[in-house]
């Protein structure tokens, strides 16, 4: 804000020395040197201070410094807050403080709860005009900057911003345990703490673990048997390679990435429109994993695939990553929407690839990490130059940007289809308006009868009473009910005054006579007026004109209920719903334009002003496009093209092998998806508030190996899966010993550290973590073991056309989850995620999630006990057992082999047979053993296996 000279005002209010005059080059300098004169002081003390104390200090004084502004000292007033100096001495009209209290600017009103009185505002205006005399020159307490953040220099020494090192593989005592360097890193830390790793897991456990881990399904009984029978040294490797080559590897690992990419098939948030093309991105991700696309390339394609010199359909599709976020599509403030979207993109990109919470820097410097407000807007300039919204919209709902791959022929065809849908839709709506029109006409034709019938009940009468009156007269009960209410609410309407007085006199016939006459006269007059030359549209007779207006007022005494359920009779309603359904189904099944969601380029901004407090209405200094200072890989600064957003440069910088974060963050994710916990537990936060790595050298070693391998994800798997660390049992002998010791059964060797006490969280990996199956695996397993799973890969599966409403204003849920394809292919509907998913901790599809939680809540049990999915599957499996098993013992064996991959013990077999027998006998009919009852009993048994912990948890 330009600062006008303030000497004149200053002179009038202050007694000053010459020295002070020359020192006063800026307001904040003034404060310390000047003492106001007595009158000014008195004015301040008497009038100004009380206002400030009473109305401002609560939020703008030591302790609570909102907006960075303190009004409890002269220095605070003059320095101002985030928006700059709060006043210009002598210039009320140029002072923010005055602007705020005047309450004229809707975006700057103080105090926020209530405007000051005119007198109070006058005092403050006068005070500022006087030059803002203020005796409060005592040095204020050190202002709380509110920042516990790191400087950039400190940041460069923080572990995650240091370059990826090349740590030597450590020496260990027990070399026999070391299959590859991973084991050396793990064992070295265990040995340093006096801990020993758990023994190797048995083969059954191992094949179940690796099969779920790589393809998300249980091993078949045949696969288990083959692995048990294979005594060769590379038996395990063969299983691993088989699984890595399976197309279902991409289904499982692609899903991991979709968690990070907050993938969904609908927008969610305010207006839930279908992302009918998101599946192309989903399939792109699955293919990328199956084809072992180098991760650096994967990163570049998702952020800037449209800008690559060799850009093609695949790379453009990859940029869906930036468009998939949930957006407030009906936000009327477009500028806010754009900046909210930029924020979402930055935050997601930061968390997904860099383990950084950029979202925290939108309003201020990062409170903890070395990221500045300027860093944020330097990146925001790149994303604001990126096009995320299309030019088109549906009503108030903005469309997101897409890359079309349609040919002219496709486009012509689409036009036809769109026209067909529009036709169907208008058929439904014209049916509705015609039917309503007929109702209105019918009511008008019997207007007098409605008014007469309305004399027979009180306005408070329940609808049932009204219905009893309406039925014999064949009047519409809800219109009649409304007529009565309308009369009640419009008692002072002169047209109806006659009705009220006649009713008061008990003269229902009089009502009939009066209104029948006036309506008939009015209609006749109208017909006559129409015949005149020229025809008259309005009647000159006020009485008759009013009668006609009352008759034709759509919200008048004959108003038809707007809700179709209330307006239409059953048959009309059914017909209307039928037409609506036809339109909806036609639209749902109509082909989409061959296109993919994705970003393009927008007007290029070489710089963007800092948005003070994150508000697009409060702009500060512009900053040029740049990368966050603390992560810069070179002191030589990149040149951003004038004609492009700079996303490509941004993506290339991120995928550079010099970047401290990209490789670390991703290998940590991979590690976590194998072991159930990352080396850094907070997979999306490598900052100060995130966890520190449990194995920092191992993390760097893995990151380096990853980059050396050409960012090959599958090589990373091979390395991890072949380690002893991965192949450990999930129970440690010391645990069993310690529970025995606790019961005083055995003595414990005091030298060996008990891992449960030494490392209760198992951070150092002394055993494998027991892991609950994820939502998709639970569902797919239940279907797989009951022989119902459809293993098809890829293609559009969301049963909605692109941009179709999932829910419009209605809450009718048309989304079906009864497809038998793998869970990856079920629709992910934001705002209404499939209940099985949401109960079993499917991540919120609006936030990047690298690690799912694992809760135990009662609704999960309800789902296992009562859902169709589980019961239908149990029933299928029961039929299979009954068909294929020769006797009950064999059936129990088959069931155990299919579900938990092992034979049952004799006791278990006995227990199962007893259970089935008991349940069968409950349903024995007169004719002996009922086949249906038998199947139901076996079904209940299979369901119990699905619900058992052994099925749901992988050891």
């Amino acid at each position: 804000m330009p600062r006008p000279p303030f000497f004149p005002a200053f002179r009038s209010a202050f007694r000053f020395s010459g020295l002070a005059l020359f020192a006063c080059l800026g307001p904040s300098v003034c404060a310390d040197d000047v003492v106001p004169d007595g009158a000014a002081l008195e004015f301040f003390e008497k009038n100004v201070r009380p206002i400030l104390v009473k109305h401002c200090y609560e939020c703008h004084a030591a302790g609570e410094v909102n907006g960075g502004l303190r009004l409890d000292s002269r220095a605070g007033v003059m320095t101002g807050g985030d928006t700059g100096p709060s006043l210009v001495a002598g210039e009320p009209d140029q002072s923010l403080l005055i602007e705020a209290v005047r309450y004229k600017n809707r975006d700057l009103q103080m105090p926020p709860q209530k405007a000051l009185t005119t007198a109070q505002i006058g005092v403050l205006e006068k005070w500022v005009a006087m030059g803002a005399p203020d005796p409060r020159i005592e040095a204020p307490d050190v202002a709380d900057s509110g920042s516990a953040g790191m400087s950039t220099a400190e940041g460069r020494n923080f572990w995650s911003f240091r370059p990826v090192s090349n740590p030597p593989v450590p020496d260990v005592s027990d070399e026999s345990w070391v299959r590859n360097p991973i084991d050396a890193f793990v064992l070295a830390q265990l040995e340093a703490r006096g801990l020993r790793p758990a023994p190797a897991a048995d083969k059954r456990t191992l094949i179940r673990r690796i099969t779920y881990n790589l393809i998300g399904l249980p091993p078949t009984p045949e696969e288990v048997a083959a692995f048990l029978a294979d005594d060769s040294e590379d038996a395990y490797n063969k299983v691993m390679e088989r699984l890595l080559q399976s197309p279902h590897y991409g289904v499982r690992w692609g899903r991991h990435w979709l968690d990070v990419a907050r993938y969904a098939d609908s927008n969610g948030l305010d207006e839930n429109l279908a992302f009918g093309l998101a599946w192309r991105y989903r399939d792109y991700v699955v293919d990328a994993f199956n084809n072992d696309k180098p991760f650096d390339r994967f990163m570049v394609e998702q952020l800037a695939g449209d800008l690559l010199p060799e850009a093609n359909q695949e790379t453009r599709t990859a940029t869906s990553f930036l468009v998939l976020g949930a957006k407030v599509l009906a936000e009327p403030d477009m500028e806010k929407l754009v900046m909210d979207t930029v924020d979402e993109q930055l935050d997601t990109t930061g968390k997904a690839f860099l383990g950084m919470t950029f979202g925290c820097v939108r309003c201020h410097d990062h409170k903890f990490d070395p990221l500045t407000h300027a860093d944020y807007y330097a990146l925001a300039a790149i994303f604001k130059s990126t096009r995320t919204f299309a030019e088109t919209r549906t009503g108030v709902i903005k469309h997101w940007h897409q890359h079309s791959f349609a040919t002219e022929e496709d486009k012509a065809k689409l036009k036809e289809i769109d026209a067909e849908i529009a036709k169907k839709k208008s058929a439904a709506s014209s049916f509705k308006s015609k039917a309503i029109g007929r109702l209105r006409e019918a009511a008008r034709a019997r207007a007098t009868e409605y008014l007469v019938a309305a004399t027979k009940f009180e306005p408070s009468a329940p609808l049932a009473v009204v219905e009893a009156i309406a039925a014999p007269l064949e009047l519409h009960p809800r219109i009649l009910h409304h007529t009565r209410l309308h009369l009640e609410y419009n008692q002072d309407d002169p047209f109806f005054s006659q009705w009220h007085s006649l009713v008061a006199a008990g003269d229902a016939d009089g009502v009939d006579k009066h209104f029948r006459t006036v309506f008939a006269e009015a209609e006749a007059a109208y017909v006559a007026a129409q015949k005149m030359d020229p025809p008259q549209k309005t009647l000159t007779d006020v009485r008759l004109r009013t009668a006609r207006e009352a008759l034709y007022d759509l919200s008048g005494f004959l108003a038809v209920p707007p809700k179709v359920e209330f307006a239409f009779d059953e048959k009309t309603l059914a017909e209307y719903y039928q037409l609506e359904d036809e339109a909806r189904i036609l639209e749902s099944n109509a082909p989409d334009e061959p296109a993919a969601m994705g970003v393009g380029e927008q007007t290029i901004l070489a710089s963007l002003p800092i948005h003070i407090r994150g508000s697009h209405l409060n702009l500060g200094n512009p900053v040029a496009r740049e990368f966050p200072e603390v992560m810069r890989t070179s002191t030589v600064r990149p040149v951003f093209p004038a004609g492009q957003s700079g996303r490509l440069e941004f993506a290339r910088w991120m995928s550079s092998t010099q970047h401290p974060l990209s490789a670390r963050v991703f290998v940590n994710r991979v590690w976590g998806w194998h072991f159930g916990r990352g080396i850094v537990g907070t997979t999306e936060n490598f900052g100060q508030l995130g966890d520190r790595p449990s194995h920092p050298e191992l993390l760097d070693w893995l990151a380096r190996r990853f980059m050396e391998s050409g960012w090959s994800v599958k090589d990373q798997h091979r390395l991890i899966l072949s380690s002893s660390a991965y192949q450990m049992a999930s129970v440690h002998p010391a645990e069993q010993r310690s529970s025995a010791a606790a019961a005083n059964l055995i003595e414990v060797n005091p030298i060996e550290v008990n891992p449960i006490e030494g490392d209760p969280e198992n951070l150092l990996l002394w055993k494998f973590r027991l892991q609950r199956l994820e939502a998709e695996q639970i569902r797919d397993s239940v279907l797989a073991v009951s022989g119902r799973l459809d293993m098809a890969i890829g293609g559009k599966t969301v049963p909605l056309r692109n941009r179709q409403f999932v829910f419009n204003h209605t809450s009718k849920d048309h989304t079906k989850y009864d497809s038998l394809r793998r869970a990856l292919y079920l629709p992910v509907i934001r705002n209404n995620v499939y209940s099985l998913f949401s109960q079993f901790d499917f991540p919120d599809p609006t936030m990047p999630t690298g690690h799912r939680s694992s809760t135990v809540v009662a609704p999960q049990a309800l789902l296992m006990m009562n859902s169709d999915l589980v019961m239908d599957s149990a029933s299928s499996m029961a039929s299979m057992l009954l068909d294929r098993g020769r006797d009950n013992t064999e059936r129990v064996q088959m069931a155990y082999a299919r579900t938990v991959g092992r034979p049952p013990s004799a006791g278990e077999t006995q227990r199962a047979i007893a259970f089935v027998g008991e349940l069968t006998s409950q349903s024995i009919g007169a004719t002996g053993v009922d086949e249906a009852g038998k199947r139901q009993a076996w079904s209940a048994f299979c369901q119990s296996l699905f619900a058992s912990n052994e099925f749901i948890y992988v050891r």
Partner: protein
Amino acid sequence: MFSGPDLRTRRQLLKTSAVGFGHVAMSALLGKESLGGTEQSAAPSPSAPQISHVAARAKRVVFLFMKGGPSHVDTFDPKPLLTRDNGKPLPFDLPRITFGTQGNLLKSPWKFQRYGESGLPVSELFPHVAQHVDDLCVLRSVHGTNPAHGGALLKLHTGTDQFVRPSMGSWVIYGLGTENQNLPAFVTICPTLAHGGVNNWGAAFLPAHCQGTPIGNASLAAANATVKHIQNDRISSAAQRRQLDLIRAMNQDHLEVTGRDQALEGRLNSFELAFRMQSAMPEVQNLSSETVATQKLYGMDDAVTEDFGRQCLMARRLLERDVRFVQVTHSDSEVQWDQHSNLYHGHTKNSSEVDKPIAGFLTDLKARGLLDDTLVLWGGEFGRTPTAQGTNGRDHNPHGFTMWMAGGGVKGGYAYGATDDYGYYAAENKMHVNDLHATLLHLLGLNHERLTFRYASRDFRLTDVAGKVAEDILA
């Protein structure tokens, strides 16, 4: 990723706790996160609220949500100048962003009358609720949602229109836990799936047990609304009991192999809770066990009020069983209160559907002594403009509107705050949505600045970085 600050202490406590697993299991059942596996969060124990800072005035909340935005100037905020200046232009600026195009001032078609000892005015739309005016604390200066439905619903329910954040009900459950062992702590009856949908009762990153459990949704009649998967008509209850015993036996065997694990043990018991919930929920929903007089009180004998009456009565039955947060939604298959046109017709119909049930609900709560410690909140996602849209409608107005509270520690017969002379902007004692949330939490004994949850390494609050308790309304 979840790592509550007192995680370690809590875990140690559990390990050394003399109560042992029994107690922990109970909390796990009630939906607390398991303590085994890898994910935990520091959820407070159900019986001992940990974040209670001030004396609680209310133990439960019921939110009567009027979807679409009821007009304040036609219900609880009379504006004589609006009547006087009908048809004239608004004498000050419209907001920078408006949802639709607005014309000149439109007077209210309804008359207001003073009621009760307090003499607070209520319009003809709510003659029954008006009888309770001395129990109402009318908040006339609420503001700060969003000009569009979706954004406004989200802001009202979660405090933000931009992100997916926990809903206010979830925060309450997170802060106070639950006192009912057989029912979910947070229930939402016939909620709308549009405009934010599940997010409006979701727990987001809070522990799973904090999420609301929906009974039906807005497209279903309350009489047909049920909790998902609560019934099983393929297998008898006796057979299912036998099945749970088998699962328990299998799981016991499995524990021998895995060693003790709290998640596994918690899961054993989650089936028992589910089994109990199966009988408890239908029992709550069985309104025929209420007397005819009670059903009538809620308007269940009249087709107009039957549906909402049913919802309110269900709400009372849940509250009485110590379900902590209950939301009742008045929404049809359109956006119920959204009268961009035909204000007269729409609002008449809407109020006639809810007026009597709400009045009956208040009468009943009072008669049963529940009103003292139950906070009732009424309102929509915004109000409506005093200016006309078309000839006879009103546009969305998030800049100043009315909600009301009753019971649970608020002053009755009291009007708080004010809008300007025409009812466009909140003007006095302005109550931002953040302030509303802060006040609501305060009434429950929770300090909104200290009710935080660490997620993705940041401490989150319902009120984010704002919020001020409206001390004036505390009884």
